[in-house]
């Protein structure tokens, strides 16, 4: 009986440890906001979940990722700030700079396919257009 408890404890501890070292959060919790022009369609949401949200959220362990962009804050951004973030998403994805090579070396499954990249940039363009008429 004692042995079982010990084994159980070790299992729980090691799983917790693994999830900490991994450091990639995939659960998205993007609340509804007060900017009605901003919405995330399901196909975009899936890509964000798989390739972006792990670093770009308010609880992220990546200081830089958190500083530059937090998807969960986007719905409540002022129009100018929001357009700025979307413009930068468009730019970094077009240039193939995100997700960073360092992350992809460990998580190749997070790489954006050509189609996914185009879904993201089209989305950014659409919301920018909605917000600024550009």
């Amino acid at each position: 009986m004692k042995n079982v408890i010990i084994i159980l404890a070790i299992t729980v501890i090691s799983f917790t440890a693994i999830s900490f070292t991994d450091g990639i959060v995939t659960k998205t919790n993007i609340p509804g906001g007060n900017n009605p022009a901003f919405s995330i369609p399901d196909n975009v949401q899936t890509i964000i979940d798989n390739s972006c949200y792990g670093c770009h959220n308010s609880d992220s362990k990546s200081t830089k990722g958190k500083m530059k962009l937090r998807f969960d804050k986007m719905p409540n951004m002022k129009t100018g700030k929001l357009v700025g973030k979307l413009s930068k998403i468009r730019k970094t994805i077009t240039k193939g700079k995100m997700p960073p090579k360092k992350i992809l070396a460990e998580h190749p499954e997070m790489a954006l396919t050509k189609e996914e990249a185009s879904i993201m940039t089209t989305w950014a363009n659409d919301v920018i257009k909605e917000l600024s008429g550009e």
Partner: protein
Amino acid sequence: MKKILYVIIGVLVIIQFIPANLPEVSSDNPNDLLLNNPDIKVDVKLILKTSCYDCHSNETYYPWYSYVAPISFLVSRDTREGREELNFSEWTTYKKSDMAGLLDDISEEVSEGEMPMKIFTIIHRDAVLSDNEKEIVVSWADDFTESLFE
């Protein structure tokens, strides 16, 4: 020992003949940010001119040593890259959404102390931003962004 010194001097002399291609300077910039936005306050204007415009505009001032290799190579590269990322002299040619993106970059880089670059402020002490000056730039960038979409 003397030999090594001669070699170093020799190399320094030879590299002077490699063109550094310093990006051209132009004082006539009809698309300039400050020229087209006379409402930008003087304190912001001064900070941008002193701490940013050397690399982020066509109005680069090249001191004498920036013509001396290998410093000239560094100055050339940093100025070229700086202008490519953000050129205040070409401001009105940017799309409004890209202006917003660049202003967000300014806000981030300045508040994190990433800009102006260390290699620049080591020599240009007047380009160092105090906490108060950082605050002035950041709140200008944020307000200016919103004003673009009002």
